[in-house]
């Protein structure tokens, strides 16, 4: 392959899809910026504070995790630890089998995407139904989410209407309200039939053991309304130290993610139903998932574990806007994914070592990140790691000869002079792939190597 996979993917992307992704991202970004900066006198300060709090958690996970476990247990929650995706899925299956359960309703959780829980359960004869509208559409389509907050940002409503029709959810109708109503009608029955409700958690407070969930559709609440068993799958980095910190994080998450002051539903869950409560799950499990996070923690890219999955970096990213989420071949696309996805591959890092290259390092992602993750620095570290592990990188010019030249002034000056050849030779004849790639899209300016140095020698300084 001459160029990078992601570039190829972008080149072949349907115009419709590109337009949907581009418009959705751009709108999301613009609304977010307005909301954040109109309302807070110093929104950047908030991002920095939130970043420091999360970094503190990441660096002290070894103290916070036992603390959280103790709190959860005291609250009547059964705590599980899963080192791998497989272990996490098995834990869920085990809980379901022990209860004789066969039907699960699922709220949106990225970590369950990571472990491919729904597929796993279906393979083992269980029903696992996505209830977030976007995830539901992706599921009935056999598609994959392409954005961590807006899973179907790549689809337009005509495509959705077609797949509803195909899946027996009524005759073709692309009115968004009709689509939503049909999904709701279908899901309502499923909520009532289900045995188990699965959610993630946006935050877990170490102080109280409270799980915090945010949604806009209220589906996570429905998942827990009629079911007797609640399973929460939670990445080990989701902790915040105190309940007090939630004020900061909920404010930033809703504004950064969906440009809302606060999400429509914010749930605080402290444990299974107490005897005094009329309903709610009697049994509650929290499965803490590692799945590569410990390795990330041990690496020089641990800052990425601060991420609160708001998607703001995707929305602002010019490469994401051109390439779409599927180009990243990962659960986590965009800037956050370009860092996290290769890291989560562990020893298979080379398979996704191209992701960190898919960036101009423009820094827009860090500028919007609510926890101020230095994403460009992390991308650079991973590029260097790929080089050190000798992962081939199509299209990237080799730098060895250049470095030699650029550390020897005499050779450098000679090449400034010699470079003039590109003014006379058709560059297509030159065996320099980078030059050809440049010229395929852009014309090259005239080579004027050494002219400035000549000027310096002949002129008189105006300052004495």
């Amino acid at each position: 392959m001459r160029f990078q996979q992601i570039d190829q993917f972008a080149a072949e992307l349907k115009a419709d899809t590109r337009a949907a992704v581009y418009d959705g991202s751009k709108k999301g970004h613009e609304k977010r910026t307005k909301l954040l900066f109109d309302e807070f006198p110093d929104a950047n300060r908030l991002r920095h504070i939130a970043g420091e709090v999360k970094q503190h958690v990441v660096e002290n996970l070894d103290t916070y995790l036992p603390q959280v476990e103790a709190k959860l247990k005291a609250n009547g929650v059964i705590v599980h630890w899963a080192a791998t995706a497989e272990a996490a899925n098995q834990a869920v299956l085990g809980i379901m089998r022990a209860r004789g359960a066969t039907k699960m309703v699922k709220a949106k959780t990225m970590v369950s995407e990571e472990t491919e829980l729904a597929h796993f359960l279906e393979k083992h004869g269980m029903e696992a139904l996505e209830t977030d509208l976007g995830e539901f559409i992706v599921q009935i389509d056999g598609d994959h989410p392409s954005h961590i907050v807006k899973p179907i940002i790549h689809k337009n409503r005509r495509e959705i209407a077609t797949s509803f029709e195909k899946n027996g959810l009524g005759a073709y109708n692309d009115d968004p309200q009709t689509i939503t109503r049909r999904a709701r009608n279908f899901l309502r029955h499923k909520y009532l039939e289900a045995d188990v409700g699965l959610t993630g958690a946006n935050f877990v407070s170490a102080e109280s053991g409270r799980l915090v969930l945010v949604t806009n559709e209220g589906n996570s609440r429905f998942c827990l309304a009629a079911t007797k068993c609640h399973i929460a799958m939670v990445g080990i980095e989701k902790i915040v130290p105190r309940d007090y910190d939630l004020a900061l994080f909920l404010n930033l998450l809703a504004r950064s993610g969906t440009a809302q002051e606060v999400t429509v539903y914010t749930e605080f869950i402290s444990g299974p139903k107490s005897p005094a409560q009329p309903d709610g799950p009697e049994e509650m499990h929290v499965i803490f998932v590692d799945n590569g996070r410990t390795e990330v923690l041990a690496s020089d890219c641990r800052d990425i574990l601060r991420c609160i999955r708001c998607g703001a970096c995707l929305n602002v990213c010019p490469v994401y806007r051109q390439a779409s989420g599927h180009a990243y071949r990962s659960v986590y696309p965009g800037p956050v994914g370009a860092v996290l996805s290769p890291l989560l591959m562990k020893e298979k890092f080379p398979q996704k070592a191209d992701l960190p290259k898919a960036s101009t390092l423009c820094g827009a992602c860090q500028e919007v990140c609510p926890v101020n993750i230095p994403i460009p620095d992390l991308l650079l570290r991973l590029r260097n790691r790929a080089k050190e592990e000798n992962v081939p990188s199509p299209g990237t010019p080799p730098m060895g000869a250049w470095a030699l030249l650029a550390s020897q002034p005499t050779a450098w000056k000679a090449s400034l002079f010699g470079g003039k050849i590109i003014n006379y030779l058709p560059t297509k004849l030159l065996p320099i792939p980078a030059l050809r790639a440049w010229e395929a899209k852009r014309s090259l300016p005239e080579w004027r190597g050494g002219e400035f140095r000549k000027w310096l020698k002949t002129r008189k300084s105006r300052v004495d």
Partner: protein
Amino acid sequence: MLNTERKPITGKRVQLMATCLCDAFYDDVAVATVQVLEHLGVEVVFPDGQTCCGQPAFNGGDWAASRKVVRHTVKTFAGDEPVVVPSGSCAAMMFHGTVLEFEKEPDLGEVEALGRRTWELGDFIVNGLGVKTWPGRFAATVAFHRSCHSRGTGSSAAAATLLGSVAGLKIVEFGEGEQCCGFGGTFSVAFPNISASMGALKLDHLRAVKPDVLVSGDMSCMMHLGGLAKEEGKPIKTMHLAQVLRDALKNVGQL
């Protein structure tokens, strides 16, 4: 985001880091930089052994190769005068990128020291020397492209201050000004399709406001955007900040 803490300016002598791009393509930008600095009474020294800041290999992921070049640069720019560079990107490389790639190296201290005295041209004039208005005249509508490596630094605001003060010059804003032009160093050749689409978008926004000239503090962005526009058969006029400032002086006979 960036390590931008800099030593205050005391003397009136600077070392010029011309950048490899000006050395190879844009000699007039380097000339204009010298003329602008000298107009301010600053003596400009050009360390002859200079080559490149090391950024291509740093961005490309070959940090070992990049460090070789950076070590050469540190040697070449010995001394304690400020180093002025007509590029936000090379400046950021010197005060941020190098620090990242030398994190575990024994000579990190020397690298950091050079970073602390390196300034992007506009930043140096406005925030280093305290010059906030520019004399002369430049009658044109200017679109100013904020290059990405000046995010988090004083460079973009400095350039806007200077340009905004030039008689006859009118700055026009354009859509999505915060978005990258798509150059990205090795990105431009490893991801030519995305790079060009990003550039095309930028050009659309620019053409919509019909500027006489597109100005930036970074010739790399100008090389990409100008090259794209020319290839499309609809060339645009691009200039470096230094050239505008220099021409403003020239236009009133001050040079």
